[in-house]
């Protein structure tokens, strides 16, 4: 494999983005069926000011503090979206648009100010916008992988509950599965994946890693379980291959390559997906048309007096 050409650190980074992509693929599936794909975009943008404030508070690049800041930003964004939607006539998509742009704009403003501070220029804060997996060190990878694994475990252990909640939340409530609890758990997983991913993928493109694998997986299967697994695989492959590709350039950002890998998988799925792929569907439709005309001719011959 090409991985042999990577440095020791790059191999660690590769493992990190692989696990990150897997977790993002799974949570993305949940977001897809909650019809909240855009929510992930709003929340990842909303995490930027948190990252910068975290940096400014400590005065140096301290990843746990910055990630905590990112989580706080994303959660605040989610609360605001919820509040705007429930207390005004503004619909959810508009609320997400407002939160996304205001938080991101605020984040960029803070970033510009902080970058003028002494020592901040070398902090690599810019990498949180487009992602720079190469800037991660082994400790970062451990932290990221740990958090991503936590999301994985939550998804797998409560798989049956996720399915029920996503298909019919009202019925789930009747069975005693609290909608409030599941919504909180969902938001927890979503924010965790975003927080884990922004260093490698960047706040702008993080949503693509959440949305694209799930959409691609939908083209291959009619089973929710298989869709989640496939989405996890697609996410993992996108994360890993994007990292490898960006590692071959000097200072190339990782996010765009991860997203392009995911997009390539999407295009293949769109065309050749066995369930809903464009090509496959065309073939199926033609076969169906043939089958539909067949019994009619049989009937006609039967009516004509000939035994079939």
């Amino acid at each position: 494999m090409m991985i042999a050409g990577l440095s020791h650190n790059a191999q660690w980074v590769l493992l990190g983005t692989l696990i990150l992509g897997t977790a993002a693929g799974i949570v993305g599936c949940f977001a897809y069926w909650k019809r909240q794909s855009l929510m992930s975009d709003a929340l990842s943008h909303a995490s930027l000011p948190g990252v910068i404030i975290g940096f400014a508070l400590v005065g140096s690049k301290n990843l746990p503090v910055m990630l905590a800041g990112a989580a706080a930003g994303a959660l605040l964004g989610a609360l605001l979206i919820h509040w705007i939607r429930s207390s005004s006539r503004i619909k959810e998509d508009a609320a997400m648009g407002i939160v996304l742009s205001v938080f991101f704009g605020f984040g960029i403003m803070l970033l510009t100010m902080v970058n003028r501070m002494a020592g901040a220029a070398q902090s690599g804060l810019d990498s949180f916008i487009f992602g720079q997996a190469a800037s991660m060190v082994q400790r970062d990878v451990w932290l990221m992988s740990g958090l991503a694994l936590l999301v994985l475990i939550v998804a797998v252990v409560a798989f049956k509950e996720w399915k029920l909640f996503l298909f019919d939340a009202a019925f789930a409530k009747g069975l005693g599965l609290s909608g409030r609890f599941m919504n909180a758990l969902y938001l927890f997983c979503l924010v965790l994946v975003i927080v884990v991913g922004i260093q490698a993928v960047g706040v702008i493109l993080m949503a693509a890693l959440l949305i694209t694998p799930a959409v691609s997986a939908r083209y291959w299967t009619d089973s929710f379980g298989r869709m989640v697994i496939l989405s996890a695989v697609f996410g993992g492959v996108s994360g890993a291959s994007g990292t490898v590709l960006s590692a071959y350039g000097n200072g190339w950002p990782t996010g765009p390559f991860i997203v392009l890998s995911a997009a390539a998988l999407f295009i293949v799925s769109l065309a050749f997906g066995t369930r809903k792929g464009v090509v496959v569907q065309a073939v199926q439709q033609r076969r169906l048309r043939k089958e539909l005309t067949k019994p009619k001719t049989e009937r006609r011959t039967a009516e004509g007096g000939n035994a079939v």
Partner: protein
Amino acid sequence: MTSVLQVEGLSASYRKNKVLDHATFTVKPGTLTAIVGPNGAGKSTLLKTILELHPALEGSVSFFGASYAKVKSRVGYVPQRGSVDWDFPTDALDVVLMGLYGRIGWLRRPGKKHRQQALQALREMGMEEYASRQISQLSGGQQQRVFLARALVMDADLYLLDEPLAGVDAATEKAIMATLNLLKSRGKTVLVVHHDLQTVEDYFDHVLLLNRTVVAHGPTAETFTESLVHRAYGGTLRWKGVTSG
């Protein structure tokens, strides 16, 4: 006689509009009741508020003399077919299995026994051959039957159904009514939001006439009379927004 469901002074609203105003009624065990009323009379809201899916402004609800939280497993709810996304990637059997999730226990996987039970429920709805069919590939009537099978498998004592006969074919209507009568004969209590005035007398032994509040409630022969139905329906036509109950 003990009541299965007791609703007292229940009110609910959507934004500023009070869609349910002091609804009070008691459902006796073993009855098959139609909830009938004009559009916007609060029929679905009544069910949702009873089941705490919609917040109540005031009033109280008790099931079997207890609060809903204590007897959830004894109450089966069949939501309107349009309340879920039928494009969700799963098959008919899997949806029916969801009715057993409470009994299977959280975080546990359904076993062979549960699959047999779900299959049996599908069989009772005449849907056995569609067990492994994608739910998106089912007709509206078939989807409704799957929903009913999911409620059946819960083996509840009280069933609340929201417009189960809306937009279904004649065969499905027959199958659903046969099932509801079977439930009744087993001593279960069934409450159905119903829209077709033509069939009320044939299908139900009790009627609850609703127009934001309970206009009348009782045995079909006494309640489903021209003057009372007219009060439930005609009232809103003549005096918009003012209930006559």
